[in-house]
């Protein structure tokens, strides 16, 4: 294959892309999700509960990440708690806000200094497991992603904690 053919092939692939993934009129595209984590994002956002169109892309090629997942949700606005949940699953995710089939804004998730009411403490002897107390976790480091429980003060790897 010569350079000209390769260029044409690339162009035709880009043209085809809109048909591969359903284009939404209004909503949000969550990009740069770590591979195979798209279902987790959909679940924490409860995206399947309504009748919105949800499009899922798994193991797509990415220049930045090698492989990535992408989720598109129609007619969706994200709340503070939902953003915190996305930050836990996909700290490098970016959000594309779609209006009238066009990307009107590109935003990037920022890991918060504190996660409130979104993470369950894995320590069975933590007070949050015994009393009706809202959980709080401080971000100790982003790489590796570590969180410290505000109450029992234990530090956990991201993989050790679960979402409420």
């Amino acid at each position, binding site marked *: 294959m010569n350079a000209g053919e390769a260029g044409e092939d690339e162009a035709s692939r880009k043209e085809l892309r809109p048909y591969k993934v359903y284009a939404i009129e209004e909503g*949000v595209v969550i990009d740069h999700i770590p591979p195979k984590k798209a279902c987790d994002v959909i679940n924490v956002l409860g995206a399947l509960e309504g009748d919105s169109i949800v499009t899922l892309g798994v193991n797509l090629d990415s220049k*930045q*990440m090698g492989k990535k997942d992408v989720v598109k949700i129609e007619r969706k*606005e*994200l*709340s*503070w708690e939902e*953003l*915190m949940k996305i*930050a836990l699953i996909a700290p*490098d995710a*970016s*959000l594309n*806000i779609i209006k009238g089939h066009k990307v*009107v*804004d*590109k*935003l*990037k*998730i*920022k*890991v*918060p*200094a*504190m996660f409130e009411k979104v993470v369950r403490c894995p*320590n069975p*002897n*933590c*007070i*949050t497991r*015994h*009393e*009706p*107390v809202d959980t709080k976790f401080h971000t100790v480091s*982003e*790489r*590796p992603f570590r969180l410290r*429980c*505000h*109450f*029992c*003060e*234990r*530090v956990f790897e991201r993989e050790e904690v679960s979402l409420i």
Partner: protein
Amino acid sequence: MGVVRKRQRLGSSKAVSSAVSSRIMHGKIPGKISSGLPSLSSRHLPSRPNYRNYKKTSKKTFRKNHHPDPAHQAHHPSYPNNVNFKGRSIISINDLTREEIIHVLETARKIEAMGEEKKRNLLAGHVLATLFFEPSTRTRMSFESSMKRLGGKTIGFVDPTTTSFAKGETLHDSIKMIENYVDVIAMRHPTEGAARVAAESTRKPVINGGDGANQHPTQTLLDLYTIKKTQGRLTGLNVAMVGDLKYGRTVHSLAIALSHFNCRLFFVAPESLKMPKTYLDMLAKKGIEFSEHEKIEEVIDNIDILYSTRIQKERFPDPTEYQKVKDIYILKRSMLGNVRENLKIMHPLPRVNEIHPDVDKTPYAYYFQQAANGIPVRQAVLSLVLGALK
């Protein structure tokens, strides 16, 4: 937290975060926002250091880490200008700065030197609640004795089954009710984080007398007071911690506290009871020199403080694992032949067999005096949080 624009535009990061907060709190996706986040490619995973014999980099790095930026110094200017404990809860040694620790120890020294007449009226008219949700001898009696010797009064319980907790009342509600009766609360609870919940439920100061395996800050402060008293200083000492370094909350807190004072730390423990990586990471980050050992003999001749701990049978899920390590460290008089003259042996007590009774009569044994130091330290904490002393 929130989201920020990918391409940088105008606007400070502070303005960005407030804009993001205000907009997201209303459930709307922010529009024009900007920030200066580093690019993804500029981040990378740090490599794991080898902790077998970790060496600090330099004194310069240590100083840099202890005063990392001007903002930090502005928030905690030099002792004692900005140290104010009035109305403040003492929940975790992690909450105290170097200056605040020094201030508590200095206050304890002043109280010890204070005349009996002045002491007797220092906390007159104040009431302490001692809420002990699990059994304790030393801590509870030490708090009560400290308060009464300063002219204050104490009320409380030692058996929660006789209180409203047995009826299912939440800790938050109970503390809200108890705050009406007292000026300060000292509590022990078997659940980790209970003292923090109590402190956040009331306007009155709460002093943590132990919350499960988590924190016991007055024990750490009395350990530091003992070290200062016996060695004349806290900085630059060689300190060995021996025994159960995995589950022992006293050694975790002491290691954190000593990290403020550039001490050389030696951790002596069997493989199954080594100091958790979280604490080693923290020490390495602060530039503290430390090493891990399996035998007391490797370090005993080069240390100023030997901090022995009980191997806690109740922490072992498998009894055979406990049998393997229970008699691994028994300190005997015969091991003290070539130690430093100023060596002091400490233990949070109760001891089982970690220190042979024949060590008690040597000039190095200091564990009983250590327990006695709990009185001036707790008196200092009570006086400071009640505003009787500044």
